[in-house]
């Protein structure tokens, strides 16, 4: 019940934050140099379509009415027409969003699990060679420049070894083959996903490892661990059953806080590997002055970040018995 109330409260806060972002974007689109109408109406549009869209977006109305329309349109998914694709933005975004979610959630999960797992070991062997190596590895991968790392992975695994595809998310051999079923197609997508996933996981597991390590070290000083030791439990049980679940909590928080950061990395990764996701679409739309698409992509990415934040917060509250809101 408590948790439920907390969730509701957070949801409310996030709603407000989102509204602020929505509003800032609205203002930015109006104060930027140039004509706001031509920014939202594609050049390839027929006059009728354009007139229709102008009235739908309220671009012929006073500013505050435009704002009302804008908010309403956002919630009904009407972002106008993409200049480049010549079709409704919502369709383009709808195609790309699942791809981003797939890559994003998998990579966050893998890097967090890797971080927790290795961080635990590092803390357990504090001062030993394993610890030093792991900490150093974490520091290095954490600070490596992401696009460069992606290029190096392409060079090694794509060019030298030729193991993995480096482009897109499907290969036409599989999709044009009438005999390939769902499984074959999933395998194909997974195959394409390996390098982008590797890039993201390598970059992000480091910080989780470091956090897990220090949290674990703190936890090991706690009374209940001493008690457990006194009870004569094996080291393994103490480590895995008593210490690590508590130590993993800060990792959960930091996952939440680094989401915005991971989204940045996601956009870069998608671009380098031509992964048809929403981040790449944003980059593409920016270089093409495709304003409606850029606007929608940005808003949706913000929404994804906010909702994931909420999920992480609730997860945290749920996992930590000490915290009750």
């Amino acid at each position, binding site marked *: 019940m408590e948790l439920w109330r907390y969730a509701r409260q957070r949801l409310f806060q996030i709603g407000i934050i989102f509204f602020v972002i929505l509003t800032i974007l609205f203002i930015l689109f109006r104060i930027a140099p140039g004509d706001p109408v031509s920014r939202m109406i594609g050049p390839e549009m027929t006059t009728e379509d354009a007139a229709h869209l102008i009235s739908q977006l309220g671009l012929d109305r006073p500013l505050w009415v435009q704002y009302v329309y804008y908010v309403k349109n956002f919630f009904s998914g009407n972002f106008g027409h993409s200049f480049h694709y010549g079709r409704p933005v919502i369709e383009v975004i709808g195609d790309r969003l699942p791809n981003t979610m797939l890559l994003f959630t998998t990579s966050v999960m893998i890097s967090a699990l890797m971080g927790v797992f290795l961080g635990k070991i590092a803390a357990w062997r504090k001062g030993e060679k394993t610890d030093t190596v792991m900490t150093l590895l974490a520091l290095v991968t954490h600070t490596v420049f992401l696009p460069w790392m992606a290029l190096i992975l392409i060079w090694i695994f794509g060019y030298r070894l030729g193991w993995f595809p480096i482009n897109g998310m499907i290969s036409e051999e599989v999709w044009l083959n009438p005999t390939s079923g769902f499984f074959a197609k999933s395998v194909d997508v997974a195959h394409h996903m390996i390098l982008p996933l590797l890039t993201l996981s390598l970059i992000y597991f480091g910080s989780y490892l470091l956090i897990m390590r220090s949290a674990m070290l703190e936890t090991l000083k706690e009374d209940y661990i001493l008690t457990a030791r006194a009870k004569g439990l094996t080291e393994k049980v103490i480590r895995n059953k008593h210490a690590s679940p508590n130590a993993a909590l800060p990792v959960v928080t930091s996952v939440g806080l680094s989401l*915005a950061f991971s989204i940045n990395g996601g956009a870069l990764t998608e671009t380098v590997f031509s992964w048809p996701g929403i981040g790449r679409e944003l980059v593409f739309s920016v270089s093409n002055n495709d304003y409606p698409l850029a606007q929608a992509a940005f808003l949706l990415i913000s929404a994804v970040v906010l909702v994931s934040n909420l999920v992480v917060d609730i997860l945290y509250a749920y996992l930590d018995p000490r915290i009750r809101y």
Partner: protein
Amino acid sequence: MPSRKKKILEERSRRWRRMERWAQGWAIYKKNFLGRIGLVLLSIFVLMALASFIPPLVDPMYKPMSGVDPEITASTGPSFRHWLGTDFMGRDLFSQLLAGARVAFTVGIASAFVSIVLGTLIGMTAGYMGGWTDTLLMRTADIIMVMPTLLVVLILAALFGQLNIWSIVLIIALFRWPGVSRVIRAQTLTLKERPFIDAARVAGASHLRILFRHIMPNVLPLSFLYMTFRVTAAINIEAALAFLGFGDPGTVSWGMMLQWVWKTGYMFKAPYWLLPPGICISLITLSFYLLGRAMDEVLDPRLRKEGERY
């Protein structure tokens, strides 16, 4: 008269204490092996940035952007004339790399400085004033914190056209203060309860005086610590932006070099071109990061957990 003398003495002892604190800090810092590595790396980059002014003076062909070797019209590997080789137009990669260090420092330090100033001021104000000022400032911080900075810069680039290096610096700074301000606010809250602040207040010091005279000196080391982390963020964002093709087209940054090697098709062929800029960006990030971690240890260890979260 006696009160003035007392003041001078007080001032002197405070100064002494501060110096002592730095010395102690340095002693702790020195013990940190990784911190020393960070400092060494950083010094190398500083040297690179300073050295970047030399090559164009030696010969105009070493101008990083527009200078070309009159005899070389293709990408060549390292040689005596071009220590890292040339790009496909015959521009010297080594002088580009040096110029990149200068850009990285300019971007990193300028934008980190602005964001730290903003973050410190806002954090102090919020913590000290409390009430609705606090709520307002911290909610703003919340909002800005969830925005992915790189994408924000991208969308601004879409709206306002090609951004020059200083607007990029400013935008990064404007979106990178919230983390700092939160920590500074927490610190200010604890300071506020200390007796010396009360004493100052009773003595009739104004809010401004208390903020800048009594609180600021105590939060500055923390701000300085955060500056190192902000520097890495700024350098990375600028590099990523340049890599994607939205950087300032008039500057030769490491991100720009990577973009060139990627887009002109030399990345499989010219490791001498692909590797150095990437290694530099990564190492300068690492060095600032190590510096920050070591400084973290020097400062109050209790803050440490807080620190890693933002």
